């Protein structure tokens, strides 16, 4: 294809065709080609962290530079908490720290020493969704769902602080959470409905 007739569309269409490999031999892996360094181990600087996660007491060794989100996702495999900006600029990593919403990507895990952390997984009652989660399904407060755990936790934090928040209070309380799909109208509806639901029950 000469550069002249390149168009972006063709480029997508031909992504296969445009890419021409030069002699990459496919080999079956033999045990020898496997590369293994020492199994990942914590360095000498690792420090013990004792805290409560979703009501369970946990102690583990963490690197001082690990953020709370790192520990939740990588060590505790609680991948419901998402990391989108890793900079305290989006809210996807929102968890509750002693009942208040914080950005887990933007604090050191060690700063949670002795504290209680609740993640999206911790809202569930076994298989049963929490009322806030139910409201997000019912009112379609999501599209791709990647920001959703953070949105749900932010909504829950508002309700912990004030079980009867007004709409303005909800908007203010949810304003630290971005949604690039921009499902905002339904996110708001979901949070308002969750408040109403909790007040009825």
């Amino acid at each position: 294809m000469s550069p002249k007739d390149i168009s972006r569309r063709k480029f997508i269409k031909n992504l296969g065709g445009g890419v021409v490999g030069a002699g990459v031999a496919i080999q079956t892996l033999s045990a020898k080609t496997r590369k293994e360094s020492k199994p990942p181990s914590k360095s000498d600087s690792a420090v013990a962290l004792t805290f409560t996660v979703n009501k369970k007491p946990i102690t583990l060794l963490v690197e001082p530079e690990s953020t709370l989100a790192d520990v939740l996702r990588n060590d505790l495999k609680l991948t419901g908490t998402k990391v989108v900006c890793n900079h305290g600029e989006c809210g996807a990593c929102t968890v509750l720290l002693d009942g208040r919403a914080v950005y887990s990507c933007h604090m050191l895990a060690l700063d949670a020493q002795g504290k209680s952390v609740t993640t999206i997984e911790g809202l569930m009652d076994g298989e049963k969704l929490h009322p806030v989660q139910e409201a997000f399904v019912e009112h379609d407060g999501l599209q791709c769902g990647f920001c959703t755990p953070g949105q749900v936790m932010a909504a829950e934090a508002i309700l912990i602080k004030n079980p009867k928040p007004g709409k303005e209070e909800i908007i203010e309380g949810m304003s630290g959470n971005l949604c690039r799909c921009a499902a905002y109208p339904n996110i708001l509806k979901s949070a308002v409905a969750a408040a109403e639901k909790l007040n009825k029950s």
Partner: protein
Amino acid sequence: MQFSYIQPTSIEEVFKLGSAAPLYAGGTDLIGLMKDDIIKTDKVINIKKLKGLDKIEDKGNKGIEIGPLVKIADLIENETIQEKCPLLVQTAKEIASPQLRNMGTVGGNICQRPRCWYYRGDFDCIRKGGDTCYAVGGENKYHCIIGGGPCFIVHPSDLAVALLALDAKIEITSENGQKTVPVNDFFILPEDDETKENILEPGEIVTKIILPEQAKGFKTTYIKFKERSSWDFAVVSVAAVLKTDGNMIKNGKLAFGGVAPHPWMEAEINQKLTGLNTDEASVDAFTSSLFHNAEPMEKNEYKVILARNLVKRIIDNLA
């Protein structure tokens, strides 16, 4: 980032640790700086457990003492502050997002580093020890219109602007003892030192923010102009403390954020406020005299207009 982590429980311990390590209060600014390689350190000192620094105390006619470790969210919730200093509550509510207010501290807020995108990005600018200010002739829409040079940041803290209008003082403790300075003297201009924003030397800790007892009869407000409805630094902000009498301003103070490398207050502006008539013509004359000495950059001339208009709005609203 990679470092060791220390969490002392007394201020003496901090001093013993030496002075080079950065202090971690809420960490919301420090972590960003470390992730972006602006601060490189092998040690971080978490000061959260330092005793007695997370309280708000009403000292009657000696004013109110705010511990630097008070979370911004707690400042908002505090009844003493709500009752005696609504300006601070109004200002604190404008800061960042709910989560960041739950994490960030008052001390950290006034000591936070600037948000200039060259400073935060990988540009080796003057503030980072380089020899170029990229904002000059560059993307300077959010930079200062007054007080700049050789660096042209604006100070990012909202609280600092309100504290300036409130004549607050800052208590600083070091191994060598304590000193108390007015907010006005706490912050510095780049021409004094282009690598820092305040007078703190390594090893010095902010241990108190002291609000003098507020005189009666003043109306206060904080207007922060942001590009999105919430969670945004000030493009321009104004903290106002005004006493009015009918359609006249008896006296008052205006402090500005987003216009200069430190929170900005001009004696000249405040003098002109005294006796200002609040009819449209007088207010227009007053506001159009503001920042006549400003030196806007290529892309931030609008800030001059904005600052004037915000003052007009404040006077219209309060008077």
